[in-house]
């Protein structure tokens, strides 16, 4: 009746798990030391944070013309970059799909996608600012690269998952290559593609608010300037409008996806 199984606690943690938590705790302790965190600094920071919040509230919308102008530029950057980025990533993604293309086509396409994904967007933004100067063009180029890296990869994966039966049927009927793509491949991936595209537009909108910090156009530049001039109430206004803009675009993208998915 009283077997071992009854006495043992059913929820006993294994030694491995405990060791794992211990290692994690040790690491946190080491990192806190390595990064020179002290309790005093943290407490001081909380005081500064309270001051900071105090200066941010109430947000200052006096320069709303500048704010709206910058927001429009941000949206424009996102729209143009998404359009071109998605446009370029369609053929690149298609070339990268292993089930449609021979190896000598997929390898270069995959390399392009990997290069686009390799660096943080800010680093691309810096390089493009050096290459094409300050302004929205650098931001647009950055976000185009970013979109190719992201959509290209997802799109290639989506194509690799399609059913090949319609492709074979259309090929057997003697259709040229473009017809195979348009009538057999695209219908199978169209819904997912709309999903990727709206997601990427959202991502581009978020990132287009940031590229301005390194001088690549959009609202980020104004935000950074407000921060450097200690205009914290204007900073709060900018942040609030960014959050509002992005929530709006999320709502919109849900609507658009609903239109295309039924």
């Amino acid at each position: 009746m009283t077997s071992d199984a009854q006495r043992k606690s059913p929820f006993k943690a294994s030694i491995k798990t405990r060791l794992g938590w211990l290692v994690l705790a040790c690491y946190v302790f080491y990192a806190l030391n390595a990064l020179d965190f002290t309790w005093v600094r943290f407490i001081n920071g909380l005081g500064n944070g309270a001051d900071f919040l105090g200066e941010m509230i109430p947000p200052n919308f006096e320069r709303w013309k500048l704010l709206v102008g910058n927001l429009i530029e941000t949206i424009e950057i996102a729209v143009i970059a998404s359009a071109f980025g998605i446009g370029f990533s369609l053929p690149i993604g298609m070339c990268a799909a292993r089930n449609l293309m021979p190896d000598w086509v997929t390898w270069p396409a995959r390399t392009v996608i990997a290069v686009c994904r390799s660096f943080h967007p800010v680093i691309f933004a810096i390089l493009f600012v050096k290459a094409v100067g300050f302004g929205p063009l650098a931001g647009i180029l950055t976000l185009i690269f970013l979109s190719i890296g992201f959509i290209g990869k997802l799109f290639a994966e989506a194509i690799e998952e399609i059913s090949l039966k319609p492709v074979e049927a259309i090929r057997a009927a003697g259709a040229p290559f473009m017809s195979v793509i348009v009538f057999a491949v695209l219908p199978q991936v169209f819904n997912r593609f709309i999903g990727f595209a709206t997601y990427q537009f959202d991502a581009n909108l978020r990132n287009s608010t940031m590229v301005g910090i390194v001088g690549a156009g959009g609202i980020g530049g104004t935000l950074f300037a407000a921060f450097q001039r200690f205009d914290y109430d204007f900073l709060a206004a900018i942040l609030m409008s960014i959050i509002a803009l992005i929530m709006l675009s999320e709502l919109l993208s849900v609507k658009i996806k609903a239109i295309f998915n039924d």
Partner: protein
Amino acid sequence: MTDTMTWERFTPGQRLARFTVYLCVVSLLVFSLSTVEIIPEFLYDAPYQLQDLFTRMWPIDFASYTQENIHEALIETLNIASLGTVLALFLAVPVALLSANNITKSPVLNWCGKFILVSSRTVNSLVWAILFVAIFGPGALAGTFAIGFRSIGFCGKLLAEALEEVDQGPIEALRAAGAPTVSILLKGYWPQVAPAFWGLALFRWDINVRESSVIGLVGAGGIGVALDTALNLFRWQQVALILLCIFSIVIVAEVVVTKIRQSII
């Protein structure tokens, strides 16, 4: 002669809705292209400028790796990323519990949780870094908090989704046995979401290594500070070295994450 019924894939309403979306997208694009301030000369000039940039970056200045403390900056970047991830997970758990609608029953609280998650993701890590530099002053402390707060949205959202998908059987059993809420969470929910939790922790750490390499541009510590200095001094060969370092740690982080993921899942 025969009464032909043509099959149509979409109803007129659907087609109208789609057409409206296409029309809006195209007109928005045309409007953007016509009003955005782009200087065409700069675009034609870009390939030449990029080429010039790369010639200045060559040869890569490997000597400054030890001389200019780039090694320390790299380690600092990794520490910021890891500690930021730990902070994010620590903060994301309560928010995820708040926004999972099978744990917190009140829709108002759910919305509060979701609002925190969305705001965290909306504000870019560079912007978070700016905010925390204003609070804590320049340095790794600001960077860690920026990475942490930026990651709450991602971790919290995925964790909340995992919590909403758990099998209710064990939870009902625990509840029927009269277990307190903490036990239900620890023994009922945690074992079921633990794989998802560690998966997303790894995934986020990988992202955070990338993010923490640039937050130094606004003064929040890590290798970005070295990059900013080198850029401002036009030391392009050193810039090349720093970019190479960032590229390497990003690749190493990705490989490590893939290996660990294979062994735990």
